[in-house]
């Protein structure tokens, strides 16, 4: 069993397929994510592919702040990814909400909705940093067993839901 286990773990590390979700980023981070695919950085060297379908993906790369509207979509996308999976929050906005943290319609960083494994700071994050982030995420992903090791959703998720449900009350009236 050990051999197959090792083979599986190696393969996981060598074949991370990313899905990139833009939560309302200013596109600065998005462009940097795509830059990783260009010949200059060529992440396919590490077996990394940019995939458009959460059902095929291993790593969810999220950029931008989370607001009540896209929180649901983000959560849904995350739910549709088969285990084992990891999440990387990209950029100042993705990690914490950035300069928009205090805005009335902003929940905060990605970790308010789904469990985040790696935070990549920067505004925007550099491609090298993003690649570094993926490598970090792979370490976590490597030994994760489906179903068993998924961390329970952060309590903030509940909060986010409440916020979403009560947003009428909190809307700014003109």
């Amino acid at each position, binding site marked *: 069993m050990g051999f197959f286990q090792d083979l599986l773990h190696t393969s996981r590390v060598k074949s991370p397929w990313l899905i990139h*979700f833009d939560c309302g980023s200013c596109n600065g981070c998005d462009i940097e994510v795509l830059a990783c695919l260009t010949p200059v950085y060529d992440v396919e060297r590490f077996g990394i592919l940019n995939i458009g379908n959460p059902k095929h993906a291993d790593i969810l790369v999220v950029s931008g702040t989370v607001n009540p509207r896209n929180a649901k979509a983000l959560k*849904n*996308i995350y739910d*549709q990814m088969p285990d084992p999976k990891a999440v990387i929050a990209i950029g100042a906005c993705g990690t914490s909400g950035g300069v928009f943290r205090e805005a009335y319609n902003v929940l905060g960083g990605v970790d308010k909705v789904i469990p985040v494994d790696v935070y990549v700071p920067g505004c925007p994050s550099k491609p090298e940093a993003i690649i570094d982030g993926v490598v970090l995420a792979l370490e976590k992903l490597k030994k994760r067993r489906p179903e068993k090791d998924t961390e329970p959703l952060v309590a903030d998720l509940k909060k986010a839901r409440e916020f979403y449900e009560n947003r009428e009350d909190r809307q700014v009236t003109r």
Partner: protein
Amino acid sequence: MLAPQLIGISIALPFIAAVLCLINVKPLRSALVIGTGVVVSVASLALVQSGAISFTPESFLGINPDGLIAILDFALLFVILGIAYRMKNKLIAVLTLLQIVPLAFLELFMNPGENMGPAIYVDQFSMIMCMVISIVGSLICVYGLAYMKEHEHHLKLATSRQGRFFFFMVLFLGAMNGLVFSNNLLWLYFFWEVTTFCSFMLIKHDDTEIAVKNATRALWMNMLGGVAFVLALVIFRSQGLPLSLQEIITAEPASKLILLPVGLLCFAGFTKAAQLPFQSWLCGAMVAPTPISALLHSSTMVKAGVYLVIRLAPAFAGTVFSNYVALFGAVTFLGAAVLALSQSNGKKILAYSTISNLGMIVACAGINTPAAMAAAVLLIVFHAISKALMFLCVGTIEQHIGSRDIEDMRGLINVMPRTTMVAVIGIVTMFLPPFGALLSKWMAVEASAHLPLVVLMLAVGSALTMVFWGRWLGLLMTSVVPDKAPLAESQPCLIRLPLLALAVAAVLISFVAPGLYSSMVLPVLERFYDTDLYIAARGVISNNIGMFALYPVFVVMTLGVIYAVRASSSKRLIKRGNYVTPYVCGLQDPGDSRKLGFKGPLGVWADFKTTNWYMESLIGESRITGWINLVAIGILIILLAGVF
């Protein structure tokens, strides 16, 4: 029992039972239909024990059978004339007169009985046809008992018309059996006209405006074939040939003019088999209740047309005419497959697919090699079983969901799991290996390989066939897994029995195809051909150019299906993994994985709907039928010119 008695039972019993069916009492009718079905089925199976035989019945209930048939012939034609008069349809009247006058001339002045030889000739081919007619036909009639009850309930009729319905259904079985046993062409002609008449009466059974219109069209197109038939008989006699099928096949092609009447008989076969450009009557016939479509317009009556063409094939072997027949059949195969692709009406798909398959049988008869003939005979059997099964499924589905459109059958597996599984077997046996229909198609393609144009059309047509069947197969299963296992729908016993019997037969007979070939088809072929015959040994059918490893494929795929069923069994999956919603860009309802649709703008729940694309703008029926007919008429003219 002796073979002549069995043959007599197969023909006469349905005629007698049919008349009794006119007594419109339900228990009697059920008993008659089931009883007749069982007896003729057993008789057809018992008949297989005897080899090829031929004889002339001396008398039928003390009457000279030749005279009886002549009288009945004229009676039938005058009945049709009367109908034409009542409908004020000049075309049918003219076509009927065109048959009455030459037939009278033939009977009175041309001494039709000269050198007749045996009136009945039965070989393995006839036995195969008889089995198809008796067993598949009886199953359809039994199905009809339950179907018509529901049908009439739906129509809210004051008085039941089932007496008339089963009169024609059962009568038809007898007529078909008579048709395939007859060697005397006059007898064959009589049974031929009886089937035409049955078809007409059954299509207009519901007496709606459209039914009467389509029935009329079916009648005049078939009468066209009848006229050709009578003309062929007159020409045979004028050349001094006896009106015996076997004599004509084995006659030395001394006089080249023999091809003309043979060509006319083939023309009659083409009209009966609804080959292009006569396809419209068969499509129109789909207005009739489904058992009729299953019995007459897919599995048996239209097979009479191709039966005649196959019977005559040795008579024109090696001629240019033969190649034209192959081309004509291939055009029909391709044209009907294109038309089927543009349809979403389930019964019309089946109708066009039937025409398409009959086209392939005609093409095989035209190719005229032993391999092609084997393909033709086997295709008759397998097509009859699978297509009857499909028609019965569509009929059952239509009575349950109120639609015959295949788009409405989306996800039917959760609504009618039993019928859908049977339909899946029906579809798969129609177009995938290792089942018989594909085996015959494989034989046909290999046999046609020396005729590039024909093989091209067969290749394109078979790809089209795969598309429309595959599409249908897929959408039956389009569904999300429900919370509870879907409740199996209730099926009356008289519906379940024919469905199951046909489904089992479709699979089992495909499995015994090598045995069927060596015991039933090979003896017939050996009479006319001595080289390049297929040999079936140890489950592998092979000749000098190809081989089909039927049993290996069968065994591996059976094991594969068992494995796949185990792997996908829902119990295991629920334990191991989970069901999710389809991907809708993250806008699904996270609470319910069974809910289809997505959250649209302003938080409004939106359903999406997907449909197949039928390419109506490209190959819609109204768009291309004219062109296809034009091509077919062109080839038909060349073909009939090819007899000279």
